[in-house]
């Protein structure tokens, strides 16, 4: 696209220089100021018959309420405030409130176990956590080991059940806060801290800034094609980046009405939700789409889904069969795949509405994004169509992550061509570098990208990245396990699921009961996503001569791939 620049996003939002740049205010106050205060912002349904409907004016007032409350608790701009709850309305209000205060929102997936929670809170030096009666128990188990965590705020449940030091705050039953002095953020003021997993070490915090809103709003407008009268449903949980970039920021910056379903997954419940709320635009994930496929055509036909007009997907590659199936069962509507990740903050490679969809392809780079695939050895752009390389982007797009929280060396390692001591601010603005995503793809003659797989050992299960190191560290804490390796194995619905290879300590014997015990051990400590769905007992694990476990060997066997050069393996 000629003459593209990111300021187009400001035109799309009709945002003028001099206005407050604060995502919290852009998503609520600003929509009210333009006269849409009574428009529905959030249509919420929970388990059972619970439902609620909130206008943009409600968003404005309730986010003010959180900002005011946190301020009175002593939370300062720049403090990290964790949101740890299911997809209840207070999650959305508190997210905007934290940003209005100038603090950094740190949303975490509510299914995380106490160990996963502790690692992320300790890393971020989180000062306050906002949670619910259901999830505060996990916080209680770890709070004594988190000296920075000063405030534990519970937003739902019976306040009489709280323990000493916990604070109850129910924004909807508190005095309305009509005015709040919103923090005047600079473009580079930190906004959101999302944790993501890598191959080595514990999860890293990808830090985003208020300037990200331009990338998120413009991609929401152009790729998801949100219009004023749309009813939009993003199925992602805001514990993950899709749930904030496209489940909060993008749609509400545009003033769109969105729906949230806080309930366990069943196909019929999802279809009913679309039908009852007359959803028009639906952004979901391949894992969910494949689960819907499993339940078949007849179930789709038993609901009135005629309101749908645009479908999109993200999380892992969307297989061609799923694209074709959606066209057949949703009246010709095909899911439009999009590619991006926690670090990019917004969509990078997309299928636009109206673009020819090639089932199985991720589409083409979004305007303003210079993308390529780099040769696996030379790290130079691949010229040859169809040749596999590393997906890479030139730095500089607005929603790009600004650092891994306090890990400049790890940040630097993501850039090809970086000088040894370059700091994050130099790296993110240097358009001679390539930011390497960690995924592999090829580009066809017409510029369509085709996903191949991860370039590392990170496991993509159900669209969520899980780090093998974190799982292995937890596995060896089990009383029966001596050594462990975790890899992804193919799965029809989730693309990959975790498989663990373990050796047992003397005195322990392999059994089905032990396997179940280990599975539940990991599920509770880390999360259901990290739970191995299969455990293979081995007498020994493949290692290099220096004693490092060779995951790639185990992974290759699971995927039926060539195991490659084994000369570095120990003979033992």
């Amino acid at each position, binding site marked *: 696209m000629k003459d593209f620049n990111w300021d187009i996003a400001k035109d799309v939002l009709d945002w003028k220089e001099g206005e407050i740049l604060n995502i919290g205010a852009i998503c609520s106050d600003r929509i009210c100021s333009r006269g849409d205060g009574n428009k529905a912002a959030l249509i919420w349904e929970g388990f059972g018959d619970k439902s609620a409907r909130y206008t943009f004016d409600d968003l404005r007032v309730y986010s003010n309420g959180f900002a005011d409350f946190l301020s009175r608790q002593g939370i300062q701009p720049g403090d990290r405030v964790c949101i740890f709850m299911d997809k209840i309305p207070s999650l959305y209000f508190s997210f905007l409130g934290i940003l209005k205060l100038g603090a950094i929102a740190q949303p975490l997936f509510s299914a995380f176990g106490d160990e996963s929670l502790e690692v992320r809170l300790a890393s971020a030096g989180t000062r306050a956590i906002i949670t619910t009666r259901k999830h505060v*128990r996990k916080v209680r188990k770890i709070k004594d080991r988190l000296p920075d965590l000063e405030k534990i705020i519970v937003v739902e449940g019976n306040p009489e059940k709280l323990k000493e030091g916990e604070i109850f705050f129910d924004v909807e039953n508190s005095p309305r806060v009509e005015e709040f002095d919103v923090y005047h953020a600079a473009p580079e003021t930190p906004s959101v801290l999302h944790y993501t997993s890598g191959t080595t070490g514990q999860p890293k915090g990808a830090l985003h800034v208020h300037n990200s809103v331009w990338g998120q709003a413009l991609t929401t407008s152009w790729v998801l094609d949100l219009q004023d009268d749309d009813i939009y449903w993003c199925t992602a949980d805001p514990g993950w980046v899709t749930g904030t970039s496209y489940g909060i920021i993008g749609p509400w910056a545009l003033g769109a009405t969105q729906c949230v379903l806080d309930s*366990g*997954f069943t196909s019929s419940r999802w279809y009913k939700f679309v039908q009852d709320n007359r959803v028009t635009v639906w952004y979901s994930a391949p894992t969910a789409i494949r689960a819907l496929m*499993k339940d078949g055509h007849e179930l789709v036909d038993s609901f009135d889904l005629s309101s749908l007009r645009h479908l999109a997907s993200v999380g892992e590659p969307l297989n061609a069969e799923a694209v074709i199936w959606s066209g057949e069962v949703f009246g010709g509507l095909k899911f439009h795949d999009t590619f991006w990740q926690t670090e990019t903050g917004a969509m990078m490679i997309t299928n636009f509405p109206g673009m020819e969809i090639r089932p199985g392809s991720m589409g083409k780079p979004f305007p303003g994004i210079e993308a390529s695939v780099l040769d696996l050895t030379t790290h130079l752009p691949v010229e040859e169509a169809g040749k596999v390389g590393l997906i890479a982007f030139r730095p500089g797009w607005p929603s790009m992550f600004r650092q891994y929280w306090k890990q400049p060396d790890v940040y630097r390692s993501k850039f090809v061509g970086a000088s040894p001591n370059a700091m994050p601010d130099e790296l993110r603005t240097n358009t001679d570098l390539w930011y390497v995503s960690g995924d592999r793809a090829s580009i066809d003659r017409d510029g369509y990208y085709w996903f191949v797989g991860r370039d590392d050992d990170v496991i993509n299960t*159900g669209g969520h990245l899980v780090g093998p190191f974190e799982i292995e560290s937890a596995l060896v804490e089990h009383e029966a396990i001596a050594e462990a390796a975790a890899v992804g194995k193919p799965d029809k619905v989730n693309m990959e699921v975790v498989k663990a290879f373990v050796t047992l300590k003397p005195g322990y014997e392999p059994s089905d009961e032990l396997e179940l015990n280990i*599975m539940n051990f990991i599920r509770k400590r880390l999360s259901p*996503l990290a*739970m191995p769905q299969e455990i293979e007992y081995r007498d020994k694990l493949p290692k290099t001569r220096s004693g490092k476990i060779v995951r790639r060997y185990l992974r290759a066997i699971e995927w039926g791939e060539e195991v490659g050069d084994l000369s570095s393996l120990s003979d033992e």
Partner: protein
Amino acid sequence: MDEMKEVVLEYITDEYLDEDDEDEVSYDSPLISSGIVDSFSMVSLKRFLETKYSIKLSDEEATPEAFDTVNSICILVGKHLG
């Protein structure tokens, strides 16, 4: 069947609910649709049933609907036990 229901209910209470959880789970309580058991955790519940009752449940049978209550789980397991 009543004994099986007790066993399954006890396992779910022990594994998926916290000790001080105020939610009461009965034979008819929704498990999947309520979020007590998510789709990933269903795998460990399935493994428990297979181990406990020496059966094999196919992926086609182990649907969120079939696993949504203790009653529906026991009907599914009962079919395999004959």
